[in-house]
């Protein structure tokens, strides 16, 4: 046998095997659904980012153990951004250029605003940490959906609760001088007036403000029945509450989603007693877990408290799943454009009870939430309203 023939004999089996491996890998890639994520595992938003990452990871492990999404396995690739929008974009480029990404999870309003054209170009559907009202606009942001009510709607749910509990009450808005803080304020003032509530004052605090005792004096002048605080996580909420009590104000303080995490409320100590706020998800210790099979799954996976930001990771996963299922069941290819259609068509969406009510998307958001009150002695957030859905 000539050397050439001997080589041919040796090479052909190797080449055939290589082609088989490549072919099977290609088939597997096609079946796989990839979720990419820019997650803030370090930096000022890491307290939430670490939990988003854990939540999505656990969801993916669970869904794959259930056979995947319509038989397709799910793979999750998340990278740290340090809560820096430039880094978030870099991570997005890195992941989407090396993987066939179907869904993406974003970590901030700034990133989610800036990446929209790229999402449209690559036909990827995104959700994430932002609840910015601006993103709740399918015309401008067709490739995104929110994981709950936008900030304006969160304030709207709080105002509906106030109008229901205490008609004609006076309300103060206290917000940070950031895009995050300003987001729901103008809409909130208008809605308060529409609901017959009096807007007592609006107090703005600079970002990173060290001492709010002068601003607390402003609150005393207005003496509102309720104060809605937005644009903060923890500080300066305890300082405001504490000083209001020292000045003998009866004002009831309220917060929005990122303040309402149990771990943050715990940090307020005794000051948190009676603090009210809106939360779109069930807490880990929800007493009606029998209505929420996915909450039971989470409890089986972890026997200690899990943060609401962890649940948010699960909600992201289960909503991606519902949207993908709807798209595949309609016989459409799994891409951003087709999944946008699904978002508009879907009704009675079930998150396994993590959001306490079945819903349809309203624009890009889910305008559902519940009011909870901090019970410090129990170390829990206690529901004080039913699930409220804005019209």
């Amino acid at each position, binding site marked *: 046998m000539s050397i050439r023939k001997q080589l041919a004999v040796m090479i052909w089996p190797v080449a055939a095997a290589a082609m088989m491996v490549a072919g099977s890998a290609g088939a597997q890639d096609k079946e796989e659904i990839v979720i990419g994520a820019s997650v803030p595992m370090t930096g000022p938003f890491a307290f939430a980012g670490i939990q988003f990452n854990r939540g999505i990871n656990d969801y993916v492990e669970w869904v794959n153990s259930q056979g995947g999404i319509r038989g397709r396995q799910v793979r999750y690739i998340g990278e740290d951004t340090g809560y820096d929008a430039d880094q978030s974009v870099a991570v997005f480029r890195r992941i989407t250029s090396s993987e066939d990404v179907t869904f993406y999870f974003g970590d901030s309003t700034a990133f989610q605003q800036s990446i929209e054209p790229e999402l449209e170009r690559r036909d990827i559907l995104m959700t994430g940490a932002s609840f910015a009202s601006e993103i709740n606009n399918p015309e401008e942001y067709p490739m995104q959906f929110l994981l709950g009510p936008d900030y304006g709607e969160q304030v709207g749910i709080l105002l509906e609760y106030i109008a229901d509990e205490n008609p004609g009450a006076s309300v103060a808005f206290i917000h940070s001088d950031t895009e995050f803080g300003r987001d729901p304020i103008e809409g909130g003032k208008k809605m308060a007036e529409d609901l017959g509530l009096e807007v007592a004052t609006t107090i703005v605090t600079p970002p990173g403000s060290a001492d709010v005792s002068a601003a607390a004096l402003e609150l005393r002048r207005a003496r509102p029945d309720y104060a809605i605080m937005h644009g903060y996580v923890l*500080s300066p909420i305890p300082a405001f509450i504490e000083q209001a009590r*020292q000045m003998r104000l009866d004002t009831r303080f309220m917060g929005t989603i990122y303040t309402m995490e149990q771990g943050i409320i715990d940090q307020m100590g005794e000051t948190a007693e009676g603090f009210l706020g809106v939360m779109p998800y069930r807490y880990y210790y929800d007493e009606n877990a029998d209505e929420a099979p996915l909450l039971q799954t989470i409890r089986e996976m972890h026997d200690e408290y899990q943060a609401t930001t962890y649940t948010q990771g699960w909600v992201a996963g289960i909503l991606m799943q519902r949207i993908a299922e709807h798209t595949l069941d309609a016989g459409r290819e799994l891409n951003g454009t087709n999944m946008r259609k699904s978002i508009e068509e879907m009704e009675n969406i079930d998150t396994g009870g993590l959001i306490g009510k079945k819903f349809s998307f309203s624009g890009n958001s889910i305008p559902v939430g519940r009011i909870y009150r901090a019970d410090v002695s129990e170390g829990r957030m206690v529901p004080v309203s039913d699930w409220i859905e804005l019209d």
Partner: protein
Amino acid sequence: MDWLFLFEVSLAGLGRGGLYALTGVAFVLIYKATRVINLAIGEMLMVGAYLFIGFGAGMALPLWLAVILALLGGALLGFVLERTAIRPLLGENPISVFMVTIGLSSVLVGLVEIIWTANPRSLPDLLPRDPIFIGDAFVAPKTFWSFVIAAGVIAVFLLLFRFWRGGVALRATASDQGAAYAMGINVPAVYSLAWALAGLLAAGAGILLGAISGASSSMGVFGLTVLVVVIVGGLDSVLGALLAGVLIGWVESVAGVYLGGEYEQLFTFSILLVVLLVRPWGLFGTREIERL
């Protein structure tokens, strides 16, 4: 005009200014002795707050002991930073040293997030909570007590600078390094002393700031306003840091209440701009003339 209200707002502003002044003194101390513009001062302050959380809440030590240990920890941090990161750069371009302090601030944030996580935290209750009234005017108790403590600490330090041997050595080194060497002063030891004392003061300010507004890994942003304070007061003037701290605190509070919180920083930086235009060396700083 509601004069009582203006008085209350002014008192709140003075309270805020006390913390600016205390941190400003720490900044000036380093600059005077070593000519280093330390942009990590806000993060040194943050470390102080977290050390207090670690000793007071984590290890559940008595609060007075936690304060002492946090202050000593702050001093040790200042000492270590100087010996490991600043001293090797002696004689280098000031911009290099400046950049190193920016790097140090990132390292300190990272360390805090590794040890205490990035979750915002409240400090164990340290300051009294009973409302304070000066006449009819209400002052938030934490603000009041932090001002009193800051003023007390600053007074002690001023006395130390004046009468203590170490303080005199520090002032001598600040005014003329060569002459200080010639007089037998151990200048490298003075450098270490300045950083250690600044670390101690920053840790104290961090504990007070944390007691008022809680701690987070981003609380070092406070250092940015302190930078404005010391530039306005004069980088090498302790008196300047004190007066500018109180002035900026007062202006921020009055502007915040009467015009809105969105105007606070506008006023702060406008003051900076005007001072830089009129007296670039600061209100009380030393005017240095460089001849080429």
